[in-house]
């Protein structure tokens, strides 16, 4: 079938050329060579790591190809009963979540009233945030309501976020907050 089509092509082309240029036809005729230069497969010799799409809630399974510690490709996991290897445009763009020059990688700090960010050390920033949480908690903590009900909480710190993050994050985050008495915990499920 294939061969027939190709012969047809050669014939048709040859005929056209023949009319115009007679005997020149046939010289260097290279229409049907199966000689595509083998392109090196990008994911050859890479490690495949199972992952999940971080966008919507469908939970499409992905496969991540890693070579020399670098992510080189991400595509759908064909085994998944959710997506059977398919993805939407966001899922198909997960690669650019990781390999992207716009990605911030430094810790930034802005002093009250300052005009600009300063790049700061991660450890310092963590210490400072912990200090601020303790200060605010200690200043605003309520053990009992005016009517005597025990509440052990503060409403002066607002912890936001979680719907885009792991269950493990959510557990640690809510436990951190509730452990300290921070009750205003919210995420995107509300809005």
């Amino acid at each position, binding site marked *: 079938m294939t061969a027939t089509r190709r012969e047809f092509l050669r014939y048709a082309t040859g005929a056209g050329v023949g009319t115009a240029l007679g005997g020149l036809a046939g010289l260097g005729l290279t229409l049907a060579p199966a000689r595509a230069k083998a392109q090196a497969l990008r994911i050859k010799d890479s490690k495949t*790591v199972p*992952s*999940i799409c*971080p966008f919507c*809630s*469908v*939970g499409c399974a992905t496969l991540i190809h890693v070579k020399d510690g670098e992510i080189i490709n991400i595509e759908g996991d064909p*085994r*998944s009963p*959710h997506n059977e290897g*398919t993805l939407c*445009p*966001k*899922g198909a763009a997960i690669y*650019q979540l*990781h390999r992207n020059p716009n*990605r*911030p*990688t*430094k*810790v*930034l*700090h*802005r002093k*009250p009233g300052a*005009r600009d960010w300063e790049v700061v050390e991660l450890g310092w*920033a963590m*210490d400072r945030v912990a*200090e601020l949480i*303790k200060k*605010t908690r200690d200043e*605003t903590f309520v053990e009992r309501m005016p009517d005597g009900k025990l509440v*052990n*909480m503060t*409403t*002066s*710190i607002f912890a*936001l*976020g979680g*719907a*885009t*993050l*792991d*269950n493990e*994050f*959510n*557990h*640690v985050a809510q436990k*951190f907050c*509730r*452990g300290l*008495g921070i*009750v*205003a*915990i*919210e995420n*995107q*499920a*509300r*809005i």
Partner: protein
Amino acid sequence: MYPRNLEHSDCFVIMGSNMAECHPVAFRWPMKAKMNGAKLIHVDPRFTRTSANCDIHAPIRAGSDIAFLGGLINYVINSERWNTDPFFREYVVSYTNAATIVSDDFKDTEDLEGVFSGLVQYTEKPEWPYNAFVGSYQPASWQYKSPSVQGQGEQVAPTARSGEQKAAQGPQAGQPAGGPTGPQPPAPLSWDDVVRSLKRPPPQRDPTLQNPRCAFQITKRHFARYTPEVVEQITGCPQAKFLQVAETLLQNSGADRTSAFAYAVAWTQHTYGVQMISCCALLQLLLGNMGRPGGGIMALRGHAAIQGSTDVPTLYHSIHGYMSHPTVLKKHDTLRDFITTETPSGGYYANLPKFMVSYLKSFYGAAATRENNWGYDWHPKIIGDHSHMAMMAAMEEGKVKGMICVGQNPATSLNGSSQRAAMRKLEWMVVKDNWMTETATQWYSAPEIKNGDVKVADINTEVFFFPSTQIAEYDGSFTNTQRMLQWHFKAADAPGDCKTDTWFYYHLGKRLKRAYENSSAARDQGWKNTVWDYDREPAETAGEISDEPDELKILREIAGFQTADPTKHLAGFGELKDDGSTTCASWIYCGCYPAPGRNLTARRQPDPPGAPGAHLNWGWAWPANRRVMYNRASADPQGRPWSERKRWVWWDGSAANAPNAQTGAPTPAGKWIGYDVPDFALTKAPNAQPRPDGIGLDAMSGLDAFIMKPDGKGWLYVPSGLVDGPLPTHYEPVESPVQNLLYPKQQTSPVYKHWAKAKNYNQVARVGDPDYPHVITTYRLTEHYLAGAMSRWLPWLSELMPELFIEMGRALADEKGIRNLDWVKIKTPRSEIRAKALVTDRIGVMNIAGKRVHHVGMPWHWGWEGLSTGDVVNDLTSWVGDPNVSIHEGKAFLCNVEKD
């Protein structure tokens, strides 16, 4: 219901969702069904990519969904098919509360011109004046005819409760206020007797459904006014279309056919959002579609882990596994109070003491003892609505000092300019994100800063930005829209200072543990006793330096283990105990990690092609790896599949059973089997009767398919649990171009929430306001994600939808002299923004009771950061919301549009 199950549907109605655009891969399955002859229906104010692929698109005015659904209910109940095909009667009588008799005190909206019995005024309490109800119901009269269903009534989001309300209702009324002042008695060894003491006689039923006070008759009367004519008048949907939808749905429901609904935030983001979903549930119960393959209601959630973040709640109102957060608004003073208030005696939720004690053990570890009531008093209590908008309203008044924002972007959220103004009043703010979000940069680049209204130097907030890891740079689990936990593995190291968000809280916790190490203050004891050990074992970090917490240790704490030996994990919530011998944060996740080395969330074993099944070896879905909830209803009352075509779970009367593990007594033959994990007591025969002294599942009959409900029935009529009425009723959105045609005296829900009502920044347009004549709805596009942080920085996605736009009909564009791509100003009482016009016939003018109403729509993905930037559409929205769940009304409000 889950997306893949839709391939078994015969009819699929998408309403309140734009599934093809927002969940494209899930839409694979209804499209498979369509290839096999299923009918797809989209009911939506816009003709979207979903509509383009459906057989029927029925346009309705944004926010009029209950009128449409109510019309369907009325059509179904009065249809010949529903009244002649025995399937419907059998399903409804056996599995729903249609036959249950309702209190004589109950008065319907039909009796009271648009409101239910029990409506009272609401006044804020000074300790926390952000609950924002415009009115409030005392729901005592909504109960089943005495003796009432008790307990589940308290499964109301605490958002919905106020002290007054509580005081005026129910058996706890009149109890003295105030918490434990002296030493409390220790917790009992077993809570069974406490639960048994809550038992009430079963409610009265009339299986003939003739009693005028039975739930069915009340429902029928309630919806009698929702005729096709009224539906057309209210929704703008031509009657012919409506009837086509109704008939298609009806013809594709029955013993041999099932229909499904899907919804998303276009049903939740209303001042009566919960009622929309409730209305759909009512309809699907009537049609016998619940608990069956290809039937039910598909809740399409929006974020990778939003189900997980609700199950493992970073939400103020609940603790793990949907237990209510201890609150001052209910009788929760002691653990015993909490348990007696929250626990129903019937249904699986009667096991709540086991869930709660195991949760407290996970929290406080060895410090939680029977003597100290498992540390309950250390656990904080909420004092009101601490939801997003409530907190922002408080923040705007300077009541909040600090904020930690991880992976969320409130600067572009509801009534965005007000949220930004609120955040500028913080003393400190931490943003941890993968991308520079508008929230991180609002203090120097928000529109009000750029235009000079606010000076950077005047903002005294100390701001931090911490970069985060991306999905492939750490291990962990997401819970998807199917309630399925799926593990993802780390593939590469993160660059620079990018750390996981779990790392952030874990290490903050470590610092604060050190900070409070020497405190002897009573208020710090809870924190001091909080178990905080997720360090990796040295062996795991050999060869690499990692201070990242051990995700599997966290998962183990969530999923549970034997307190005495943490290497003995729990195989399922059946193993949970209320004596402290089991430690388990989340009862619903119990069983996902049944042994060390057996993380079931990481399973990737699909069923072989063509085999009927639910892919039970792929990931792990709560509860107990079940894929279709309440699937007992997929069999008829005798336990046989309703039809061969709709076989899912059934009773095998001959299956031999192992003897009782404790007593050694033989168990009678017979077992529920099928393609899924049966959602029922495995060996309970279809004809089993409740045990008279039984609690929990023992209190249920072989017909009580809805095992989480205290009466085992699917609820047509909702006697408790909702604060805005036991039946869905059509109200207008807070901002509406027309009067409520159904109940002219009751324009909106009588009990919705309106925060900062007196503030200039949160004013709403009047009914039919000539300054704001057009209905606007907001939505997502396939090409972007949420507020855009995860998509607008990605060139491959930005190029696909490079700029913000407003979609408007040709008639409006002609009226205003607007051409395609012209710049347009969009104005609401809150704000004004600009966007380019996309003039189309996919949205347009509707005829609402003789009035021409223009619809416009805007995607809300934009902000000022990223490659693709645009105005913040949420600046237009307001802080009004649903009284049950405090979700805002972002899907239907009013605006004006002018050429710029």
